[in-house]
């Protein structure tokens, strides 16, 4: 015995001017704004990709002439380019590995142990991040040159400038980003998990590898990615510490006057696409992890 049909409360309110305005903002203006914003971010990249298919008649790849995939067929086909790309990747990989390991250890020490000078170290770690790059570059150069006068430094270690000096410079600024990223992860780390591991018979070493490391791994990976991307496109500091060695950014900057080859756009596009793929894959992986919420306890 149903009494009566439910009254129809769910009618849309109509007519009111303010509401209509809100609705049109919802429906049109916000999406439009979002579209423009995305376009603003994407246009430079789109231009870069488009011009990787250009066939410039002159030296510079600045005006659209004709479609061509020549550059894609031979992406390293300019003198010095292959070498520059290899150097950049080697430095990025090496400095990422070194900085991530050192940064992890520093982060652990800073978060876990009270030692004399911890406050100072915490502060110093921020220095490379907050100092203007150009100042860092100049002071590194000064340091490397000055080192030639110190008898305890073997001749030729830091000067002439080389692959090694670039690497040292990149490790230095990368460390601070790595420490800051990992420290954030460690600060939220539930210490009682380590106590539980010790309670169950794991010594400090086992506890670190079985419990601490797997749980801070996302932070470590994020730090490593950040370091890699900072290193691979660094120009300013590298300029001061590279001497005759050419990295990819330095190659581009150097070829600017002579005309930037299309291959630069090709490599730029490859880097961009790899980065996008990486983000997409890691997002997908994270989403899968969230479905079985392993980190639910971490709060």
């Amino acid at each position: 015995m149903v009494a009566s049909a439910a009254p129809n409360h769910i009618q849309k309110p109509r007519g009111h001017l303010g509401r209509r305005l809100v609705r049109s903002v919802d429906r049109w203006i916000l999406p439009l704004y979002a579209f423009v914003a995305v376009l603003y971010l994407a246009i430079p990249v789109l231009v870069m990709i488009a011009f990787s298919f250009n066939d410039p008649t002159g030296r510079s790849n600045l005006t659209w002439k004709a479609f061509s995939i020549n550059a894609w067929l031979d992406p390293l086909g300019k003198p010095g380019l292959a070498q520059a790309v290899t150097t950049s990747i080697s430095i990025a990989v090496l400095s990422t590995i070194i900085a991530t390991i050192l940064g992890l250890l520093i982060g652990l020490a800073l978060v876990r142990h009270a030692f004399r000078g911890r406050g100072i170290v915490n502060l110093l770690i921020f220095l490379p991040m907050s100092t203007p790059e150009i100042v860092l570059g100049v002071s590194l150069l000064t340091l490397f040159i000055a080192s030639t006068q110190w008898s305890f430094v073997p001749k030729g270690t830091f000067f002439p400038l080389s692959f090694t000096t670039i690497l040292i410079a990149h490790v230095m600024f990368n460390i601070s980003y790595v420490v800051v990223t990992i420290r954030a992860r460690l600060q939220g780390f539930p210490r009682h998990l380590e106590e539980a591991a010790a309670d169950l018979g794991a010594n400090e070493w086992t506890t670190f590898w079985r419990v601490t490391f797997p749980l801070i791994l996302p932070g470590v990976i994020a730090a490593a990615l950040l370091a890699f991307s900072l290193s691979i496109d660094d120009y300013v500091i590298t300029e001061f510490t590279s001497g005759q060695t050419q990295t990819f950014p330095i190659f581009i900057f150097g070829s600017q006057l002579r005309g930037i080859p299309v291959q630069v756009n090709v490599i730029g596009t490859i880097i961009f696409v790899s980065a996008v793929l990486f983000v997409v894959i890691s997002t997908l992986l994270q989403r899968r992890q969230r479905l079985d919420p392993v980190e639910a306890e971490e709060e």
Partner: protein
Amino acid sequence: MSTIDVRLVEVTKVFGQDVAVDHVNLEVLDGEFFSLLGPSGCGKTTTLRMIGGFEEPTSGLIELNGEDVTWLPPYRRNVNTVFQNYALFPHLTIFENVAFGLRRRKVKGAEIKARVAQMLQLVELRGFDQRKPGQISGGQAQRVALARALINRPAVLLLDEPLGALDLKLRKQMQLELKRIQQEVGITFIYVTHDQDEAMTMSDRIAVMNRGRYEQLGRPEELYERPTTRFVAGFLGVCNLLPGHVDGTADAYALVALDDSTKLRLPLAQVSGSTDVEVGVRPEKVRLLELTDDVPAGANVLRGRVKQTSYTGVSTLYVIERSNGQTFTVYEQNLERAAANSLWRPGEEVAMTWSPDDTFAVRGASTASTADAASGSPSVNETAAS
């Protein structure tokens, strides 16, 4: 017969200026369910953490099975802990969580499998082995924590308020379950709680802690029936306390004269040497009689006027006021008077009577200051005459 499993000798822990644990001496017997009971901040967790090896004592000695372990790290002690927040490893499955201790001892794969299965059965969690800790409920997580600790067959299991995060109903159920499991595996349990009901239902013996030391140690009924300090009396339940001084003996009893020189009897052993005491009696031991009724020979009697009556179903709670203003709480079972619809009503004069054997004496306010009463024993009836 019973050997001593855990021994604490003069164990002290100081944090900066704070003395968290103050010269504690304890002996826990093999196979015993032993509880540390006390209000927040009294040093229970700190004591437990020192036994587990997570905290080093400032001074003192800790022995497990007769071996000095004071300076050993947690992973070299044959002790396991169930943490209050469970501390399950979020990145490992339930199976791997439970197997963690066995893997550290390099137990063979097949044996691990069998023992984990057996443990999950003991805690009634079969079929959960492939889940992650984020996918089970609080009560289930609690059982996993228990299984993960017990599978190592420790000499002693430490439990720090393991039921604290559960709701009341689940708590009650898990209390029984814990007790069952403890009896089944026969391992010594040291159990920390601030819930006196929980401690009393489960424990073989309880140490009631206050401010870094324990005030009394004994079986639950000893502590409840014959508390020796004001703090213990109040912490374990409601009680009535009346200040007085020892004034001779009669038969096998000591006599204590109250402020208004009424005399109460209590077992001689209760006053042992002290002169100023507080006499106590639990509310359910007291019977209410008409002034004209016969009082059983030798019973303690006090008069008063009913101030408040609260019917609670199982019993009725009366607040009785004496002529000097002291109030008394009395619980009466709802027997004849409830049936006859004649509960005592406010304003009626009554005689309160109870057996001398149900009477105890606690050391007066010299050891227990007002701070104790405020923090730990809100249920003590303040009986200051004024």
